């Protein structure tokens, strides 16, 4: 059944209309601060006033937060004036950021204070409008106060909202919620967003009034889908796309003239010289590095190479002399540290902040006049979001500089630069039908009250993320939660009860609420291990951090790659792993991708299109000058960059062939092993899916393990026996999902995702009876759990969800099916080439090393093969 949504464009209203609806005090206050209504206010205020759902997409600094509050403040003031404010929550505002005090202060608290001052001056009596903030950090005493004097405007996070939805006393305050504001909605294309969408429906169910929903978003696409996500099934929503784009000034830079022939020491020093020069010629700079490890590296090198530039010799406020004016901000740093950095930024006490991704969101960071993107941000929406951090006010110019690190990065950043300038935005992915999130929410719903099962399903299906949830999946979650899978023993671990006769569902166990509250949330827990050099000149030097689960796969002696260098693992002490440097051996542990952002599919297609255009010019023998001119015009890059791109492409063209929009080059190369390299530039999410499916088909045929390397720009296979033609024949868009479901069944990635899903669905409790379980312990338990579940049913809902998450959220099966279709129908032609050295485009991929090993060989076969080898060894010794 097609679900109908009424999505339409909001219209710009005029100033007079809005003035007319404003309460005299609010009007007076507004015009004492502003001259006119901003564009987003012209779109939003009237519609909120008229109780129409609206999604407002506007760049940072366009006043959208105040837009959402203005009509609400106006409404509440008009009631307060009549002394008719009820003891209830009128408005709920949810933001994914915990640290939003400042934003709320500027856009809500201060305006209210000023309005009250004004009223007092005019001797107008106004009832007090109360505002409360509740996040994970809120003290218990504060929470108690809230219940005594309920807030009219309730500011919260998705997690805290879910918690109050199980509290009887809070629910009593939600009987008439009139407004729901969802801020930073562009950052909710994940399970956190899915979770929130269900909470909103639960709230809708509790409130006797259907609240108006207001979504606030940065530049994002497609707005229609985000609007549906905001309002839920079958409701109407207006979309306001604020046209006033911030002016941007974006360029692509390199530290050196030649990215390929320069030695690494020289590259290194010129890169940091360039960064330093940029920092010094601006007031405050933010550098985005994508990974936590790189963040630390950049700070270390800047301080080492230019010690005087990053240390303030004067006294700080506390009278301390000599303090850093460079700081790090990323998610594995403590909350206190991050808060201090944000505070210093606002006060203008820092020259530069280096961050992985954590400063992307709208935390107020004061005045920043330059954003450096060190390495590709992998998507145009993200690039714009980051660059938008510079010049926070609407009419400031946002200045951003891409600094490229290698030749693939250069091409990618140049195309992203083009997309940013032409406002081509990649698409958000919103996960659907997540069964782990559903389990947690159903448990929460059962704690709230006893439900009729059909009524419960109806509420769930109103969320956009579950609008096409099928009854079987829903029932399997109910069976799971009510303990049916426990097999021989009834209901020992059941979280809920379900009575088939009365169709009722309720919570089970005295501890249900405590278990729920202490295990709520969707963000997986990870812990990190610091990698430290064990001996020699650089003894005790930190080289980076890795995920704890990555370390667990390693045995002493294993070689792994971190930040482009090889290390041999020696031993661990606490949260530190000691390693040997200068290792020549090949890695024995696959490269770790957990931190790496995937290239967006849209940008990948854009690069393929660009490759095709350049290739045509080579084929029609255009002059180098003409082609270079074309490149610099097409990508909006300097001659220096277009020269480098020209050289890179020309080398590939001369040596082999260029893979592009209409043709896929498959390169056969025999090095230490047999390689088959796919020049498949579709981003890692698509490549992951395609390569694993093909690898699996080959491995099934050959019965041996296959090494597989995956990047945004392609993938390769290496192994003894690679029957590719047969695998290509078997791979069809319609069977890709089936093949992949089998192919991932034994992989590390499925085990890892299963752990996350098991925690979200409360199969494994992170906290129980006041004790929290270490990530390592969770890992071990989830491993045992998975092997037990595999023995029961492949359709166990949480295992099914882990597979869905791998295929749809981690990989991009939908687009992979699309590419498979293009290949099948000949829209993309396959051409095979043989090389004696990897071609220039394949070089980075081969150098990067392998990502995973497809274990195709049966366990028993492997054991027998190893046995044969040992027997042979013993016999040889005897000779």
């Amino acid at each position, binding site marked *: 059944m097609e679900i109908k949504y009424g999505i339409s464009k909001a219209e710009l209203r005029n100033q007079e209309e809005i003035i007319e609806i404003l309460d005299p005090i609010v009007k007076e206050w507004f015009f004492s601060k502003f001259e006119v209504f901003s564009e987003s206010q012209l779109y939003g205020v009237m519609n909120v006033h008229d109780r129409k759902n609206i999604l407002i997409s506007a760049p940072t600094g366009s006043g959208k937060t105040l837009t959402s509050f203005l009509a609400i403040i106006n409404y509440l003031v008009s009631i307060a004036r009549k002394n008719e404010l009820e003891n209830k929550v009128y408005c709920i505002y949810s933001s994914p950021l915990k640290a939003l005090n400042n934003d709320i202060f500027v856009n809500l608290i201060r305006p209210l204070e000023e309005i009250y001052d004004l009223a007092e001056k005019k001797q107008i009596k106004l009832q007090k409008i109360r505002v409360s903030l509740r996040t994970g950090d809120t003290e218990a005493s504060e929470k108690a106060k809230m219940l005594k004097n309920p807030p009219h405007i309730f500011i919260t996070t998705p997690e805290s909202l879910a918690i109050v939805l199980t509290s009887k006393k809070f629910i009593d305050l939600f009987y008439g919620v009139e407004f729901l504001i969802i801020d930073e909605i562009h950052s909710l294309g994940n399970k956190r967003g899915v979770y929130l969408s269900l909470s909103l429906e639960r709230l809708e169910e509790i409130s006797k009034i259907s609240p108006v929903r207001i979504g606030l978003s940065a530049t994002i696409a497609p707005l229609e889908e985000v609007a549906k996500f905001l309002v839920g099934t079958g409701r109407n929503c207006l979309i306001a796309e604020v046209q006033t784009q911030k002016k941007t000034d974006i360029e692509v830079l390199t530290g050196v003239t030649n990215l390929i022939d320069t030695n690494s020491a020289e590259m290194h020093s010129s890169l940091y010289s360039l960064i330093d020069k940029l920092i010094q010629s601006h007031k405050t700079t933010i550098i985005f590095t994508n990974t936590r490890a790189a963040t630390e590296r950049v700070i270390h090198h800047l301080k080492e190479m230019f010690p005087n530039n990053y240390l303030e010799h004067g006294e700080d406020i506390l009278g301390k002399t000599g303090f850093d004016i460079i700081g790090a901000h990323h998610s594995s740093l403590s909350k206190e540290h991050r808060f201090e950095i944000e505070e210093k930024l606002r006060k203008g006490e820092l020259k530069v902040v280096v961050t992985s991704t954590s400063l992307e969101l709208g935390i107020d960071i004061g005045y920043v006049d330059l954003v450096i993107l060190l390495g590709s941000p992998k998507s145009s929406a993200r690039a714009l979001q980051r660059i938008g951090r510079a010049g926070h006010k609407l009419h400031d110019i946002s200045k951003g500089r891409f600094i490229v690190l290698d030749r693939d990065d250069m091409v990618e950043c140049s195309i992203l630069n083009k997309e940013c300038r032409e406002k081509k935005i990649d698409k958000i992915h919103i996960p659907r039908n997540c069964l782990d999130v559903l389990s947690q929410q159903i448990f929460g719903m059962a704690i709230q009250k006893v439900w009729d099962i059909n009524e419960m399903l109806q509420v769930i299906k109103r969320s956009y993320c579950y609008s096409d949830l099928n009854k079987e999946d829903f029932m399997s979650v109910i069976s799971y939660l009510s303990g049916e899978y426990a097999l*021989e023993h009834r209901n020992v671990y059941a979280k809920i009860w379900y009575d088939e006769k009365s169709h009722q569902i309720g919570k089970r166990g005295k501890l249900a609420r405590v278990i729920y509250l202490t295990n709520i949330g969707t963000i997986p827990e990870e812990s990190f291990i610091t990698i430290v050099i064990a001996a020699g000149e650089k003894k005790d030097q930190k080289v980076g951090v890795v995920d704890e689960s990555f370390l667990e796969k390693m045995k002493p002696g294993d070689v792994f790659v971190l930040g482009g260098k090889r290390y041999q693992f020696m031993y661990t002490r606490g949260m530190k792993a000691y390693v040997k440097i200068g290792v020549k051996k090949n890695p024995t542990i696959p490269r770790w991708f957990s931190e790496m952002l995937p290239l967006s599919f849209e940008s990948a297609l854009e690069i393929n299109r660009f490759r095709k255009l350049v290739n045509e010019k080579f084929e029609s023998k255009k002059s180098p000058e003409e082609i270079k001119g074309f490149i610099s015009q097409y990508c909006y890059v300097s001659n220096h960059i277009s020269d480098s791109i020209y050289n890179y492409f020309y080398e590939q063209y001369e040596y082999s062939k260029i893979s592009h929009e209409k043709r896929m080059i498959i390169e056969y190369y025999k090095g230490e092993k047999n390689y088959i390299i796919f020049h498949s530039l579709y981003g890692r999410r698509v490549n992951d899916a395609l390569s694993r499916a093909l690898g699996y088909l080959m491995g099934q045929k050959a019965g041996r393990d296959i090494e597989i390397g995956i990047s945004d720009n392609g993938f390769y296979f290496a192994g003894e026996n690679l029957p590719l033609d047969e695998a290509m024949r078997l791979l069809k868009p319609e069977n890709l999902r089936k093949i992949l479901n089998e192919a991932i069944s034994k992989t590390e990635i499925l085990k890892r995702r299963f752990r996350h899903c098991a925690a979200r669905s409360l199969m494994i409790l992170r906290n129980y009876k006041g004790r929290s379980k270490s990530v390592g312990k969770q890992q071990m338990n989830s491993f045992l759990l998975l092997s037990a579940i595999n023995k029961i049913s492949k359709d166990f809902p949480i295992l099914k969800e882990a597979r869905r998450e791998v295929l749809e959220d981690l990989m991009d099966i939908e687009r992979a099916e699309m590419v498979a279709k293009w290949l099948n129908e000949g829209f993309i032609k396959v051409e095979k080439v043989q090389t004696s050295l990897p071609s220039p485009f394949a070089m980075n991929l081969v150098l990067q090393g392998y990502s995973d090993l497809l274990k195709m060989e049966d366990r028993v076969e492997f054991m027998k093969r190893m046995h044969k080898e040992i027997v042979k060894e013993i016999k040889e010794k005897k000779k």
Partner: protein
Amino acid sequence: MKILNKIARKHKNNENPTKIEFLHDSLLIDESILVLGDLHIGYEEHIAEAGIFPRVQLREILSKLKDIFWNISMQGKKIKQVIILGDLKHEFGGISDIEWSETIKFLDYLDEQIAKDKDEKKENDRIILIKGNHDTILGPIAKKKGVALRDFYRHKEICFMHGNKLHGNCFEKSKILILGHLHPAITLKDNYKKEKYKCFLHGKWKKKEVYIIPSFSPIGFGYELNSIEQSRHNNEFLIIKYNLLENFEVVIYNSNENKEYNFGKLKKLI
């Protein structure tokens, strides 16, 4: 047709040699005594700790046993006695309803399968329960089922012990020692991959022939002997020190073809 592998043990001056065969995760002695250990019934519950853990352990244990009994009966033989080498159940502290009922189900199943042969064995000798370090409060169940709980057991020249304590008298009088407790497993690896297998250890210690059998539990009981980090912790765990185990031979049993694979001495695999 499945064929059992036989290793006939011939000891000099012994007219009635003991025959010991590898069979799944257990040993078959004189074609009629089955030895298994470290079942850790109730472990699932311990892991779950109020989360959700589907219960498969007992089901898997029983299906493995069914295989073994079927296999033996196909050869026209009968199991007359089952020796459990300790750690029948998992929990140290108390005994839960589940552990209780599963342990009973398990013992009932064995009771059904063991051949009734009143002349040869006394009723309560059909199942021999040796106490493991986890079996602190197994007494009531054993009593209920009329099974004696012992610290060790002797059959001809063999002494059966759990492995955490040395029972001197039994040890002195025997030529062969059969132990559990360690849950031996081995990781085989080549350049790329690693796989873990449960295994038997077979070697000499204090002039006795020793067998250490793997855990019979289907979930995750395998102590990786060739991981140096782990074995360090383990030094005083088993009555035999780790460095002495290094000279033991590693045997992996492949139940698909009912065949054992001898990988030579443990130290070669480290």
